């Protein structure tokens, strides 16, 4: 069966994300990017499937690990690389760096490097949507570790109490830095979601952007009809070390075999035909973006105290 246009588009976005991050890995030793980077390689499909299901005007909030979300929201690549390189042409003039990507034009309303601190932001924006009857849906993407923070509980309770139009998306890579989920959580994510009465769905094939998209789209449609918050858990894998561009299978806290098994199913690795058809164009786009970003100057003294208040 030939692939649908949607498949190709999502494949392209996913591959774009991965190649952007691989470009970051390439560039990193040059010190052109002086910012901690939390790579999404392995997790691209979550953002891609989700963002495609959002309508214009919908909002989304993410974490420090949001390269994928930025690109999936349609974020400009030159502005992204310029941001990572600390240039004035960055989406946030170089003040944000990798950990705080935002792209309001595409609905990405910020990303925080304090774990879970953005969850109430999504709830608040959903409350505003409800007050204004704007029809917006707000999505919130967070890692499994977020669920341990108290603010997750507070935010979920409030979203449920007020039946707000918010979709919680847990990107479960079963790791927080070097700690495995079973050493951190005495609860199941499903039980937590259901405690607030959230309809809960889980996607095991977190590499499958089509499934993520199908599920997200149906869920977002439902939210838009006013059914209240929903919870989606997506199993995924983080390919690289927690922060930085290296591999760290050797240091003992995670196993290589399950990663390899995951790769065996990853469309970006397995569907060579689509890959080959897109790669040149994607790489050219990235090369151009990097060049344009490098052409942007560093912010000067006049920026130091701008936008404080």
């Amino acid at each position: 069966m030939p692939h649908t246009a949607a498949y190709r588009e999502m494949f392209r976005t996913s591959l774009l994300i991965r190649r952007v991050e691989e470009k970051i890995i390439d560039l990193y030793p040059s010190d052109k990017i002086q910012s901690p980077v939390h790579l999404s390689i392995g997790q691209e499909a979550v953002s891609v499937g989700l963002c495609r299901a959002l309508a214009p005007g919908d909002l989304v909030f993410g974490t420090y690990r949001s390269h994928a979300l930025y690109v999936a929201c349609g974020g400009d690549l030159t502005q992204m690389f310029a941001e990572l390189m600390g240039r004035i042409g960055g989406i946030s003039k170089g003040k944000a760096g990798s950990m705080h990507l935002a792209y309001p034009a595409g609905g990405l309303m910020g990303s925080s490097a304090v774990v879970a601190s953005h969850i109430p932001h999504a709830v608040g924006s959903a409350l505003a949507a409800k007050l204004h009857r704007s029809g917006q849906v707000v999505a919130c993407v967070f890692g499994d570790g977020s669920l341990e923070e108290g603010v997750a509980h507070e935010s979920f309770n409030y979203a449920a109490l007020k039946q707000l139009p918010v979709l919680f998306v847990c990107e479960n890579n079963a790791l927080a830095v070097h700690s495995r989920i079973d050493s951190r959580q005495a609860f199941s994510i499903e039980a937590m979601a259901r405690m607030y009465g959230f309809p809960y769905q889980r996607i095991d094939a977190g590499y499958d952007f089509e499934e993520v998209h199908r599920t997200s789209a149906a869920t977002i449609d439902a939210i838009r009809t006013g059914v209240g918050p929903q919870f989606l858990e997506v199993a995924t894998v983080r390919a690289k070390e927690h922060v930085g561009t290296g591999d760290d299978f050797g240091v003992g806290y995670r196993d290589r075999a399950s990663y390899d098994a995951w790769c065996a199913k990853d469309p970006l690795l397995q569907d060579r035909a689509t890959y080959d058809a897109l790669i040149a164009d994607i790489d050219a786009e990235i090369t151009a973006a990097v060049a344009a970003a490098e052409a942007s100057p560093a912010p000067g003294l006049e920026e130091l105290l701008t936008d404080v208040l």
Partner: protein
Amino acid sequence: MTQPRPEIVSYANALLEAMDGALSQSPNTVILGQGADDHKGIFGSTTGLATKYGADRVSDMPLMEDGMTGIAVGLALNGVYPILTHIRSDFVLLSANQIINLIAKYKYMFGGLFEVPMLIRTVVGRSWGQGAQHSQSLQSLFAHIPGLTVVAPSSAETILDTYPYLIAKHRAPVISFEHRMLYNLDFEVDRSAAPANPLTPRVVRQGRDLTIVATSIMVLEARRAARWLADNADIQAEVIDLHCLSAIDPAVLMTSLGKTGRLLVCDTSWPGFGTAAEVCRLVVEQDPGVLKQPVRSLGMAPAPCPTAKALEDLYYPNLATVVDAAAALVRGRVDHGVPLPAEKTMSDIYKKFRGPF
């Protein structure tokens, strides 16, 4: 032509008026806080507003200070102006992460892509055994952090000239420290006297002998002390209400000290790393030569607040301690000979305060 009788407004009513005005002027303004909609109405400052504007716009909250503050960020990002209430400033510590790591930084960190204007109202407790956890006045913690506007209104008038401005025009996050002991007091209000920039320090009394820089309820103590000193010792104190802690114009301090040469700082919190410290820094970075005498600062004793009334009375500065410190400064010796007021004055409102808390 007869002088019109001055308008009299209580602090609580000024707050209520400011809240009512904010809700009526923009449909995008909401108030969120534990008990904001109940019959006590945050000590009278939100009473009746839930009925008037609907439960959606004046809304009770679960016990979730951290989450609630994050919700305010999300509201602000999506076009709603949130006013949060906390019946004790101590409880905002539960939302320190949101206020300091997120709210203070949201505009700058994203290079100006976003603004998160909001007003966080907190009430400073005192008296009737509030104790260590219901008595803190945490303005200096937040004034240390760039990106926040920190105010501590000392009167109904400053509320009425500042809150509407902050809510309607100041596109930045604000945290306000309102003093519980001021709520029930009546103030003269001159609505025509609003300063062009309501965030500057205000010289509320002219004097030549010393400068008392004060915040919140200590402005009242300072004014009463100034009156006493004038009446009993011909000492003329200039009194400056700092009002906004996050943007103190040193010129106002230096002009006054240029006249008086003597500085007494009276704050509602601890002096160390507090308002007293910051005022001293601003002065000596300009010119330590203006100071003819060592500076004095008065604030809470360097301990948690005890509940026993006997200790609480020693813990806080009062009219007598302000007079004593001022007189010692001006006379240049501790045995200054200026009579001290008997404790029959404003401290009574602390002594008599019996709730609601």
